[in-house]
């Protein structure tokens, strides 16, 4: 599916995006648009290409075809290390916190991207300059930790936190990068119902603050209740896009999920 339109009008736009691994077509000709300040959902059965699509738009895997625009700029060929600086941050399907660092330092790793990681002469010899920059980064990290409600555990080793808390540390690290687009890859996987609700409320509050969030989820009831727009992927193709409730009633989507059309209410 390919969406056309003015690239400058959308925050993110992909056009004919494809990713192949050898002979395997993981993402096939996907075109979608994300507008600023909205909460988007991306669903699909296991192996449908959701995470690969996220990896492609965050440039962690190379694309084989297609174009990607962010904020009107073509970023299809930029380095993966520059994606953070243009305003895209992400979390991963599996928790990827650094246990060598405490919670605050994990979040600072994200905030460093905002600060630009300067290494000028002043930084090498001027301890005061280094301290000033560190204080700025610490401020961004503290703000992000407060946002996810983890200020009290800032000095803790991440491995000593509950699974749900570790997930929130990852989100804090991503939002410390001050992104315009936040990609959350199955942020509630393996969580209890109450922990899921906390993450969903957090996603909604981030969107209320002006951020665009693209949420990959398996819990259809939850994602259709909070997202403003839903994309469905199946065998690497984006087979549906639109209002979540309407999308879930589409025969193609039902076919992809349960093998036949049914009167499904989510």
């Amino acid at each position, binding site marked *: 599916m390919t969406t056309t339109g003015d690239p400058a009008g959308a925050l993110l736009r992909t056009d004919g995006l494809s990713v192949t691994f050898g002979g395997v077509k993981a993402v096939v000709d996907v075109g979608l648009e994300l507008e600023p300040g909205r909460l988007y959902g991306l669903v699909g059965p296991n192996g449908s290409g959701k995470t690969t699509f996220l990896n492609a738009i*965050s440039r*962690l895997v190379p694309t084989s075809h297609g174009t990607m625009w962010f904020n009107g700029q073509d970023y299809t060929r930029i*380095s*993966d*290390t*520059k*994606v*953070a*600086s243009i305003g895209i*941050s*992400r979390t*991963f399907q599996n928790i*990827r916190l*650094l*246990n*060598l*660092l405490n919670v605050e*330092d994990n979040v*600072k*790793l*994200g905030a*460093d*991207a905002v*600060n630009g*990681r300067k*290494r000028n002469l002043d*930084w*090498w010899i001027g*301890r005061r300059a*280094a301290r000033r*920059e*560190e204080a700025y*980064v610490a401020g961004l990290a503290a703000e992000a930790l407060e946002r996810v*409600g983890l200020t*009290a*555990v800032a000095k*803790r*080793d991440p491995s*000593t*936190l*509950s699974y*749900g*808390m570790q997930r929130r540390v990852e989100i804090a*690290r991503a939002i410390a*990068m001050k992104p315009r687009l936040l990609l959350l890859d199955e942020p509630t996987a393996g969580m*209890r119902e*109450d*922990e899921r*609700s*906390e993450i969903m409320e957090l996603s909604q509050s981030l969107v209320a603050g002006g951020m665009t969030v693209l949420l990959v989820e398996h819990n259809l009831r939850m994602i259709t209740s909070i997202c403003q727009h839903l994309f469905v992927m199946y065998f690497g193709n984006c087979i549906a896009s639109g209002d979540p409730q309407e999308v879930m009633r589409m025969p193609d989507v039902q076919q992809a999920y349960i093998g036949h059309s049914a009167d499904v209410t989510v």
Partner: protein
Amino acid sequence: MFQYFSDNEVLIQQTLVYVLLAISLQVVLRCGVVSLASIGFYTLGSYASAILVKHDWPPVLILPLVVLASGLVGYGFGKPLARLRGLYLAMATLAFDLVIPVLLINGGDLTGGALGIYAIPLAITTGSLFVIVVVVILAVSQIERGWMGRASLALRSDENLARSMGVRVTRERYLAFAISAALGGLAGALSAMLFRAVSPGNGGFALITLGLTMAIVGGRDSWVGAVIGAYLVTWVPEWLRFVGPYRALVFGLVLVVVILFFPDGLLGAVRRLFARSRRKPAPATRSEREAVPV
């Protein structure tokens, strides 16, 4: 105090040179770059320094020259080795380290062949060496803290994560190569100036093992670990003189025990001890709080 210093001056000098050597390995290991090339630069630095001192070059010129040249060559090394990781990188840099003594043995009059270069004029004092080591530690501590410290640990633990956080992975790896090579070269140059003799046997496999022992047993996450490691490998064998011919065996056992029980080095063990004493229970999540009857 003065008596103690004069009795142990050689050991103190050796410790200080080893601190630099251990840091040179630690700088790369901390970034997850398993490069042993700094040992090769140590050997090259020691020979360059020996030759130049014998030609009456002043140490104030030799040292910056060796550091700069080693750093530049080390940076250049980063390019062909950029795609190698883990053991493959270790093997490639090990080959570099082992080729250098062979070249030096066949270097003719310039390198002194298998005998090496002797009777090098004493070109540096222990005080100057101490100042150099302190300056290096200050610079390295700057690398370990702040964003560079976090970025290097991210590089070591999860390269993809580091990339998504905007860490310029390739550039940081090149820089780690360059700093490691520069410090290896510096340690070698100082060693030649202090101990007044260099030979092809000074480098090679024995020094690689020693360097890795210092960096790993002390703790690879901070320069403090390098200092601990250098102190350990220099002084513990001296303390073990009372066991006579079994000295090497006992020292080996001490190292095995440290590696088995403290896999993140002695510094890591001390840190964990402090962290355990400070640890408090995590506050409950909102749902857990709500579940508690008031």
